[in-house]
């Protein structure tokens, strides 16, 4: 039994499906985030001993790391949908990519903001060109580049495809950019492995952090699908199915 994926590729078919999924993802996200916060704030130690002693401000990790992971994951999703759109020429994939970009940019900004606020107490400055934060900053420029290019072109068809190509070129360049930032001096390249990789974090902190990540992940599904439905409506306005959807929903 081969599933005809292209059946779902038509915006008309996907619109109602997305509509049903949004509330479900929204509720799951809310639940996960609340559990993660409660766990992180009340059930864990106030201060961290061990190799990297930190005071209460370490709790910013519950937001900073999930946001950073989500920003990188959403860029992969953005580049993935762009590639699918260019190869299969399906309009829905381009709409999906356009729907992902703003949420990804927001998470990147959040990662930078929370990273700076965490850096101040622990390193003494808001910004010290730490390789991870600098890579986030450049990822932020890639998102802004995608959004700016897409909005600068009026013809939606060319805008989709040009921004998609930019996302793919960006994806190819990301490892090279991250290499050049994490290891500016190839002679002694100690900085490549992160100072505190997730493995070394205490379990009782790792669990809430992962729950928060899942919460933000399910939140981004809901946000992206909501934006996608608006994009589908604007772009398919002159199709027949939109008029009866409008009639039904405008009155509801």
């Amino acid at each position, binding site marked *: 039994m081969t599933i005809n994926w292209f059946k779902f590729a038509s915006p008309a078919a996907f619109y109602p499906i997305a509509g049903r999924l949004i509330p479900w993802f929204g509720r799951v996200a809310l639940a996960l985030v609340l559990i993660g916060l409660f766990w992180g704030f009340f059930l864990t130690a106030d201060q961290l001993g061990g190799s990297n002693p930190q005071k209460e401000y370490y709790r910013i990790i519950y937001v900073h790391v999930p946001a950073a992971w989500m920003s990188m994951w959403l860029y992969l999703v953005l580049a993935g949908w762009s590639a699918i759109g260019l190869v299969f*020429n399906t309009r829905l994939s381009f709409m999906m990519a356009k729907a992902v970009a703003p949420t990804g940019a927001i998470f990147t900004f959040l990662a930078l903001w929370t990273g700076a606020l965490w850096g101040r107490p622990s390193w003494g400055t808001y910004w010290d060109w730490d390789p991870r934060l600098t890579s986030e900053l450049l990822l932020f420029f890639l998102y802004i580049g995608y959004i700016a290019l897409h909005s600068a072109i*009026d*013809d*939606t*068809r060319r805008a989709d495809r040009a921004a998609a190509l930019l996302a793919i070129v960006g994806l190819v360049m990301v490892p090279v950019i991250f290499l050049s930032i994490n290891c500016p001096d190839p002679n002694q390249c100690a900085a490549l492995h992160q100072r505190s990789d997730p493995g070394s974090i205490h379990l009782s902190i790792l669990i809430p952090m992962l729950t928060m990540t899942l919460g933000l992940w399910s939140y981004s599904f809901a946000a992206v699908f909501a934006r996608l439905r608006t994009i589908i409506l604007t*772009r*398919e*306005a*002159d199709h027949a199915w939109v008029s009866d959807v409008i009639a039904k929903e405008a009155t509801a």
Partner: protein
Amino acid sequence: MVSRCSHPQPNLLMLDVSDLACRRGERLLFSDLSFQVPAETLVHVRGRNGSGKTTLLRALCGLLRADAGSIRWRGEPIRDLAEDYNRDLLYFGHLNGIKADLTGLENLRIASTLDQDPTDADAIVAALSRIGLEGFEDLPTRMLSQGQKKRVALARLILSKAPLWILDEPFTALDVDAVDLLQQLIAEQVARGGSVILTTHQEVPLTSGAIQRLTLGEASDPVSSENTESSC
């Protein structure tokens, strides 16, 4: 000129378009458009402004990717042929496609080397003089008038050996005798077995071969063809 009497039977099918659909932005311009262009045929595309004539021509020459349907050149989809199809094609858009800082001679020499049939200088000079530009060959084209610039671009029609011509409003900005010359060139192209697809608002008399009229924007059957009044 002896008008060769050949019945335009569709022996050698050149271009075959089947249920083509094109969209401009979010507006669907035309859909389920099918027509064949056999050898020795002139396709005269007509329609109001905005009915998608230019979009159709750009889709036919591969510049624009159609939303649906297929375009085949001698049985092969043009997307697979890519460069080979380009070699058999000469496209003439709204812009002249010549560099203002280069002379007429240089423009044509570069155009022919890029089309991979480098012609020697005096063939180019002959083409330029036939088009009515002798004495202007080695003048930078920015000094020429709008009509003369168009003639330099038209000189490529003389030099080209491409079997398929796609011309978008070729007659604009041309004076009377340039129009006659262009009509003669098109008639020669069709007579020697080539096909021409063009959009224009005036008639194009042929010495032989068939004329197909393709009107866009009408709900009725867009394709109607009639043979020229030639004796055969």
